[in-house]
Structure formats: C-alpha cells, structure tokens
C-alpha cells in the first residue's frame, strides 16, 4: 500500500503527528507548530550539510536525532515564556516536533527550492486542516467567534482530526495530480542535487 506514494501522501505522513495534534486548539497553535517545525528542519539541515560525512554514520545519525529533540525541547521551554497567554497549548506534543520525520526528510538534497516546496506544502496542509477544524468544531477563526454554535462539533474532536486530514489530503492530491506539480518538483530536485528520490 505504501508503494507509489504521492507528494501529498508523503508530506502528510512525514508530519502526521503534527497534522493530527497541532490543530485541535486552533489556527494560532497550528501556525506556531508549523513555524517551529520548519525552523528546526532548517537548523538540522544546515548542521547535517556542514558535517555530512559524520552524520551518515550510525552514531552520527543518532546524534542528529538527539539534536532535533534537543532543539524542540529548548523551544518547548522558551516559547511559552514569549506567548504567555497561550501557555496551555504547549504540551508534550510540542517536544515531539524533534522526532517528526519531516525534519530529517531529504537531508542530502541541497536544493533550497525543494526544501521550501516541501515545507510550504506542509504549512498549507496544516493551515487548511486547522482552519477547517477551528471553524467547524468551534465556530471561530483565531479565537474570533464567527458562528454562535459550532456547525460540526465532531471536527474539534479526535475523529474530526482523522476525518478532516483525510479529506484535505484527498483534495490536495486531486489538485496536484491535475496540475502535474509533483513531476515538476521531483525533476527540479533531481536536476539540482543529482540524487534520485523515490
């Protein structure tokens, strides 16, 4: 079943935990979550490319995973002090950003364009899922109440996370297939890096 994964499928699986958990508390938290993930991914990529030979070894790989976890733990301690009014949103899921597969995806690929496309797609997915969940599940956007009663209270609960993620990923897949975006990005990445990605 995992053969021939599409770009949308790949991205949603690479950031699955963030997509499912980061959106239950609304758009604001989803934005912080995504930006933290992308920032951590950029730091990890820079570190990896600086010491590529070391991190390709088994010990180096484990140290890199530990570094990712360390960065997210540091941000977990730091960010609640900046966003004091949102402190309840920073739970243990935030530390798990450090072990999100998207952080370590295509590390050998030096193409900046490919990195930006991957993270923009993830950001889009996260934003779409969180917007729908907050709007349908709580009747608000960025805590601004639009509906007095939530139109679909299911959306704010765990079943809603699976349901909306499944639907959004399906719609993205159709759009990407229609415009053949996947083939274009894969070709760009392979041309720039010389590495063939599955």
């Amino acid at each position: 079943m995992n053969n021939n994964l599409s770009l949308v499928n790949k991205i949603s699986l690479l950031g699955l935990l963030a997509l499912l958990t980061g959106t239950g508390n609304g758009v604001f938290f989803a934005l912080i979550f995504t930006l933290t993930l992308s920032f951590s991914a950029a730091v990890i990529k820079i570190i990896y490319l600086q010491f590529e030979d070391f991190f390709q070894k088994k010990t180096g790989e484990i140290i890199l995973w530990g570094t990712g976890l360390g960065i997210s733990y540091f941000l977990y301690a730091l960010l609640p002090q900046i966003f004091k009014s949102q402190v309840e949103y920073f739970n243990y899921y935030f530390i798990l950003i450090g072990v999100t597969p998207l952080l370590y995806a295509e590390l050998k690929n030096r193409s900046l364009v490919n990195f930006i496309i991957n993270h923009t797609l993830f950001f889009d997915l996260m934003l779409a899922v969180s917007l729908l969940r907050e709007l349908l599940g709580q009747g608000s956007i960025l805590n601004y109440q639009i509906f007095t009663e939530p139109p679909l209270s299911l959306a704010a609960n765990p079943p809603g996370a699976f349901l909306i993620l499944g639907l959004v990923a399906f719609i993205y897949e159709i759009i990407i297939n229609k415009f053949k975006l996947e083939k274009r990005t894969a070709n760009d990445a392979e041309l720039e890096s010389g590495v063939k990605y599955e």
Partner: protein
Amino acid sequence: MSKIILLFWDQLLNNNTVLISFTAVLLIIVETPKLRAAFKDGLVITGAMAFSTVSAWIFSYYLSSAAFLLPAIYFLNSLIAVKLIKTGNLLQGNWIAGIKREFIALPALLSLQFNIIERTNYNYQDLIILAAALTTIYLIFIVIAAIKEQLDLKESKKIFHKEYTLFLVLAFLSAVMSGFDFL
C-alpha cells in the same frame, strides 16, 4: 463491575492511546504487514513498547526531582526499544525521502512514554493503564493490517488505495471508541 475493570475499559475506549491521543499512528499505518504476519509482528512492537514504558515509569519515579532529564532518558529508552524491534526483523531498510524505516518507531515510542507518564500516579492502577495502552496498540495494529489487506484486494480505483482511506477508517473507529460523545 470492579474499579480495575472499569479503569481498563476507560483507558481502552474513552482514552484510547492510538485513536484519541494519536500515539503510534504513523508506525501502525506504515509498518503493518499482511494480516497473518501482523499477529507476530504486533507482539514484537508492543513488547518493545512495554519495555520502554516500564523503563520510563521507573526512571520518572526515581528522577522526579530532575524532570528536565526525562526527555533524554525517554530518547535512550526509545533507541533500545528500536533495537529490540529490529532484532525481530522489523523496521529494516529505508522508508521514504531518505529516512530509515527504524526512525518511524521513534515518535511512537516517545509519545507513548510521555502519554503514559502523564497519566500515572505511581500505584497499582498504573499497571492497568499500561496494559490498556499496549492492548490498544496491538489491537489497532491487527485491525489496520486487516483493512490494508482488504483495500489491496478490492478492485476500487487506485486513488482510494492511499493512506487517506485509512484516515477515514480511523475517524470512524475513534468516533466509535469515544461513544459519539460529540453528538
């Protein structure tokens, strides 16, 4: 019904680790083999998870005054558990985007440890919570393996053979587990 059995059912249904807390969803979706092999492979994975969680429980009890160290200890536990899973011939080779297959067990193991330690009170009830969480992971592993096998066999369009079909199934399962309490 006794308190212990009630607690077990509550952890298995209302506070389901996989469907309500999203623990190990990625690992279960990616690593589930054919149904026949899933019975044995599920045992290997839940066994390793049991090791890491019991270890986390012991360390969190004795190191409660140095809580800042716990994520590092959970990480080391997870690495040992990944090694245990690999000795069972699972998580071999590469996954996607240059990531090794063994990596996908790491978020599952870490989130299980964080999740369980958050629920524990360091008494006999913790054993029930742990047993319920591991039972959940094993059962969902088997269920998803069965559904994936059915999806592969069906003559539906290829676009429906992708992971989002599983998300819709998981949405229905989690609605059932939570007793449709959103209605």
